[in-house]
């Protein structure tokens, strides 16, 4: 097996003055969002073993916000205010972006996140994410169902959180209305143990398609409740990326195999292009064996890779200067990878959503089957993004 390719790819360990790069993930009781920073860390290790950035190694410092907003703020204070991090890379969290968006803007530091779930992550000036987040992924799934499964009325079961469930389910309703259909949302309170009522609400809404816009654990619970009611054949079942996780096909059980369609925001594993293969090599060579190899790990790898490429393109004298680095990141335009359907860019706007095209897969025994290759999502929400892309010339 040949070696992974990273950064300058010199094969020489970097030895200069380290460049500090931060990363924040959330790993505590409700869920583990550390896959992206793990993958980014592996990639940076690989970079450091391969000449670093202009000979300078990356000192990657990762903080855990533990799903606690105060710890999230403290993590940012530490990385942004107390240290001269030039940027934050690979962030994955449910709350960190909401708490810290203002801090980042104030400190003019760019965050190349990889695990975004909330609106603040896409609608603020200094954060840009490699993953899509619930909104595009939802719309992508809905679009597939509308076009291929004949969906006319979609019930979106979302979390009862304004900047997550309500935000992303509303986009589905808007999309359906733009296509002459209808939609509704059934909201689930994250604290409530019982998912059955939300499911029943969706069922009784008159929908023909149910979109399960939930983290994997809750989505499993909903599928289980639907199985209990034997509802499988009465609806189309679709879901955004969280259900694209290799432990899911096993966990949902045989009943659902062949019946649940999932949007994948990065290239599914079987696509296996050169970058996907390199990602695996980086993980095998530099990550812990138990670090997950999932879609967020791909996103973390991509963020780290795009960051490194940007840094390598900079004047070596400027790579330790936060302002210059931020400038360079904002200027990113048209970086490509076979893991992503579209080009990656950043730009100067106060919203960023470079990734809004993906794949559609179906849960089958032992894994996923691709049912639709890369496709652009088409919905009113993306209009201003497309306009921006036209203006920047990345389309």
């Amino acid at each position, binding site marked *: 097996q040949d070696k992974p390719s990273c950064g300058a790819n010199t094969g020489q360990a970097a030895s200069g003055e380290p460049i500090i790069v931060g990363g924040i993930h959330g790993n505590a*009781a409700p869920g583990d969002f550390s896959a992206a920073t793990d993958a980014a860390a592996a990639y940076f290790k690989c970079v450091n073993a391969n000449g670093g950035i202009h000979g300078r190694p990356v000192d990657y410092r990762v903080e855990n916000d533990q799903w606690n907003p105060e710890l999230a703020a403290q993590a940012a204070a530490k990385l942004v205010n107390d240290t001269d991090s030039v940027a934050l890379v690979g962030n994955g969290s449910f709350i960190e972006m909401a708490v810290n968006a203002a801090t980042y803007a104030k400190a003019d530091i760019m965050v190349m996140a990889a695990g975004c779930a909330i609106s603040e992550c896409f609608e603020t000036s200094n954060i840009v994410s490699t993953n899509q987040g619930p909104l595009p992924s939802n719309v992508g799934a809905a679009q597939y169902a509308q076009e291929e499964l004949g969906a006319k009325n979609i019930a979106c079961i979302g979390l009862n959180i304004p900047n997550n469930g309500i935000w992303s389910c509303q986009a589905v309703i808007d999309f359906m209305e733009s296509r002459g259909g209808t939609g509704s949302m059934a909201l689930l309170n994250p604290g409530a143990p019982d998912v059955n009522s939300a499911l029943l609400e969706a069922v009784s809404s008159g929908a023909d398609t149910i979109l399960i816009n939930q983290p994997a654990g809750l989505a499993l619970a909903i599928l289980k409740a639907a199985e209990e009611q034997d509802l499988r054949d009465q609806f189309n079942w679709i879901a955004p990326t969280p259900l694209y996780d290799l432990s899911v096909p096993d966990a949902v059980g045989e009943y659902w195999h062949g019946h649940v369609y999932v949007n994948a925001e990065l290239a599914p594993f079987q696509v296996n292009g050169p970058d996907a293969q390199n990602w695996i090599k980086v993980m095998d060579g530099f990550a812990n064996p138990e670090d997950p190899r999932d879609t967020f790990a791909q996103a973390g790898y991509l963020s780290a890779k795009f960051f490194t490429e940007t840094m390598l393109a900079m004047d070596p004298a400027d790579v330790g200067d936060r302002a210059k680095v931020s400038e360079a990141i904002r200027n990113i335009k048209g970086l490509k990878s076979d893991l992503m359907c579209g080009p990656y860019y950043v730009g100067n706007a106060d919203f960023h959503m470079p990734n809004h095209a993906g794949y559609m897969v179906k849960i089958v025994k032992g894994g996923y089957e691709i049912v639709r290759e890369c496709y652009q999502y088409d919905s009113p929400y993306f209009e201003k993004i497309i306009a921006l892309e036209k203006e920047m010339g990345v389309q």
Partner: protein
Amino acid sequence: MDKSRLLNWLLYAALMALVIGLLGWGKPMKILGLFFASGLAVGSLYALGGIGMVVLYRASGVLNFSSGAAGAAGAMTTWQLAQWGVWPPLAWTACVVVALLATLAYGMLIAPRLAWREPVVKAVATLGYALILLGLVSFIWIDDPRSIALPTDKMAVNFLGMRITITRLIVFVASIGVVVGIHQFLGRTRVGLHMRSLANDRDLSALIGVPVVATETIAWGISGVLAGFTGLMFADLIRLEPTVITFMVIPSIAAAICGRLESLGLVLIGGLSIGVIESMLTLSPTLKNVRPIAPFVIAALVLLWYQRGTRLTFSGRD
């Protein structure tokens, strides 16, 4: 005496009918049936959790916040054993055994050292233990989507237009069975009497010769078994997530309050009513967002209702 009890029951029935009527106004019967049956299903889990707490509270004076965590530890063990291909009945038993051991460990090693403190501090201390268990469980099993299944999930009967699996029936029947069984046990046997006397005043009970260690072991043991069973059922029916199972105790306390931490029958009725009302609230466009508030509001109202007319006088002695 009896007349006022009958009156209370009538009042309860009228209130329930009113709530269900208001929420379900104009909805088709089938939808009503669906939400009602679904509510009963969750409600019986609340009740089961609440019953476990009340049994221990009546027998030892400890309101145990860690029973959910013990159940979670058990359920995760079951999942792990199932992954390893262990014979399923053994894996299910392991859930009960692990919860039992975790509960007994607290009951035998830690609870006696706190016996002289007031009930609230004892209750709060169990939260510390819950954190230990939860921390260990989440450390051993990293966050990942998981589920467990019982063969009874595949069998079902129809009721009010809703398909009810045998597992749910088991929970429902078990909660009634436990209520009747424990009620008989506490009221009729000498061990039951000793439990009640320990809960009332542990020091004095020890002084008058009640066998403290043996009695407490039995009490914690029963509560451990109930915690394990509840954890298993919860993991199967709702979610296999340690945090969710752990903090399920808070709405279970609401059910326990409905029985004044004392009457198991009322805990059962309280748990079921909470489940039904919570489920029916989904039908109200204005209230459905705050559905999960139902257990807390109901419990607070019920407690105030119980205490109406009482007047505090001698602290701790009334």
